[in-house]
């Protein structure tokens, strides 16, 4: 008896009972249900919600695997065991089993906690509300481990996931009804609740916090640290990484957001699969570039001098803003969330543009919140329905005018 039949029998057994939604969800998680309708004409489409969600997850898998290698690489580099990679993406210093295993054992628990807590709550609410389990958490659960620092304590992640799923999604009615992107709600919660674990120069490198504690306890070790590029820039420090490193992703940062190259590939895949909106991605990059260019011009005009605390972030070339921090990841995987983004095509242009524009604005002017893209997307999530409203009203007015011209 194969898994599919077994699940089917289980589902039959629990039909009509309180636990039915949980078994229905398991049954259709990977397989199509084998019941067919017997009357009327039905349209069958292959890309249901589950297929969509799985496609997005596939687009994120390269980032996850790269994140595992990078976690180990940053650790070994900080400890001094290996040399920094020079230039090539396929450097033999980077793609080693040792690097991978360090990252693997650190990141797999993050994934398990994220899915375990999140899906647990989804199942619970489905049973309480007596409806089917919704697929919404599949993508969120994969996004969450990718946007947190590698050293985040698991219980904090669990608390944040519970908060994000309940307050960010379930209170609004579940998948498809939420105003804010749940993954970003979870990150924002972590950011404001436990700021010491979400910023600074320790949490981005595996083992750095532990090492600091050991030193405080009297161990004779060298402290290790690694600051994100945005963090260094906000403090006006020299950045030790080349532009090439930043693009490839050999830099400290949240687990899956460092490699702009792989994010770009994921984005192209989403556009190719017609799941991610290219309008949002493109306009967001445009918005960020415009804001970056404005800042560059201000610096060039000599308005801001090197004594200003905004100098180093403002003078960062606009294209470099696109590859540092979480901008690329946010634009490709978060801003394009079909539930919380604008629905109209014209609205998507405004929505994306403002996300890019505001991200860089927050980045530069509020060094305490270097990850401007998170706050920018959450802010625009709130405004997305308003944008849609005005786009539709504008359309209605235009058509009314056309009608008047004809009748007059």
């Amino acid at each position, binding site marked *: 008896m194969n898994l599919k039949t077994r699940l089917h029998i289980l589902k039959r057994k629990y039909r009509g009972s309180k636990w039915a939604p949980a078994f229905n969800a398991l049954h259709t998680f990977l397989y199509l249900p084998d019941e067919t309708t017997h009357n009327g004409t039905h349209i069958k489409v292959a890309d249901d919600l589950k297929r969509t969600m799985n496609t997005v997850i596939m687009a994120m898998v390269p980032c996850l695997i790269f994140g595992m290698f990078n976690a180990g690489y940053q650790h070994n580099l900080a400890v001094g065991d290996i040399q920094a990679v020079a230039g090539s993406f396929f450097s033999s210093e980077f793609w080693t089993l040792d690097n991978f295993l360090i990252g693997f054992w650190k990141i797999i628990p993050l994934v398990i906690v994220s899915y375990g807590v999140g899906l647990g709550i989804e199942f619970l609410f489905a049973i309480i509300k007596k409806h089917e389990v919704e697929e919404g958490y599949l993508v969120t659960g994969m996004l969450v481990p990718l946007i947190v620092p590698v050293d985040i*304590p698991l*219980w*904090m992640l669990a608390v944040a996931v519970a908060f994000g799923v309940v*307050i960010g999604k379930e*209170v609004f009615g579940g998948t498809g009804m939420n105003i804010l992107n749940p993954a970003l709600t979870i990150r924002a919660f972590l950011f*404001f*609740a*436990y700021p*010491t674990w979400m910023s600074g120069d320790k949490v981005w490198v595996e083992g750095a916090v532990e090492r600091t504690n050991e030193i405080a306890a009297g161990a004779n070790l060298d402290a290790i640290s690694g600051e994100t590029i945005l963090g260094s820039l906000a403090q006006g420090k020299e950045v030790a990484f080349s532009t090439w490193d930043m693009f490839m992703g050999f830099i400290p940062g949240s687990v899956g957001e460092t490699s702009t190259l792989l994010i770009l590939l994921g984005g192209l895949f989403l556009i190719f699969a017609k799941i991610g909106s290219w309008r949002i991605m493109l306009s967001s990059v445009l918005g960020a570039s415009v804001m970056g260019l404005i800042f560059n011009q201000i610096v060039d005009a000599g308005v801001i001098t090197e004594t200003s605390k905004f100098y180093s972030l403002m003078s960062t070339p606009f294209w470099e803003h696109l590859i540092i921090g979480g901008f690329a990841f946010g634009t490709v995987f978060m801003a394009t969330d079909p539930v919380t983004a604008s629905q109209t095509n014209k609205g998507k242009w405004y929505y994306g543009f403002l996300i890019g524009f505001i991200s860089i604005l927050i980045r530069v002017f509020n060094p305490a919140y270097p990850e401007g893209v998170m706050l920018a997307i959450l802010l625009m999530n709130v405004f997305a329905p308003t944008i849609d409203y005005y786009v539709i009203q504008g359309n209605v007015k235009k058509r009314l005018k056309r009608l008047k011209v004809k009748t007059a």
Partner: protein
Amino acid sequence: MGLLSKKDTKLITDPLADNNPITIQVLGICSALAITAQLKASIVMAVSVMAVLGIGNVVISLMRNIIPSKIRIIVQLVVVAALVIIVDQVLKAYSYELSKTLSVFVGLIITNCIIMGRFEAFALANGPWRSFLDGIGNAAGYGLILVIVGFFRELLGSGTLLGFKVLGDPIEKTGLYAIGYENNGFMLLSPMALIVVGIIIWVQRSRNKALIED
């Protein structure tokens, strides 16, 4: 018959739950968000509002037949303002630190919608005894929510209750902190107070379906 008749008892118990000024009427939210980061401040605020609303309701009720209705709002304001200034002065005299924590929010009791609301809706139409009970009841309903919110915000945000370190010492790493627990800084920010009030409303309405409006 006890001290209170059935109708009078209802004046006090109703605002505690099914007609709570904060969770049902959604009045007085601003102060509930602003001062509930500490339990102590919440309690003092609750007592202050109770004093102002209880006495104020009686005063307005006594004057209800002689106040010209055209200028009644001004008269009500004068009464609240006088009472609030007394409360403020008492706080300053006997617990200066706390009055500094509460800062302008004691003064802002004047603008607390619950107070003017009860004057208008109840004291102007009822006798002093019933108005007093109504004032105490509504202030208690308000205070109850404040204390619940303050309890959770102080416990989870600072790890203390009324200043006592109930979860251990975060710097010495004792108690819960020894196993890696950390305070939730988000709890100290006002948005979290709004979310806690929201959760109370959620729990209350799912227990009593009659409260859900469409």
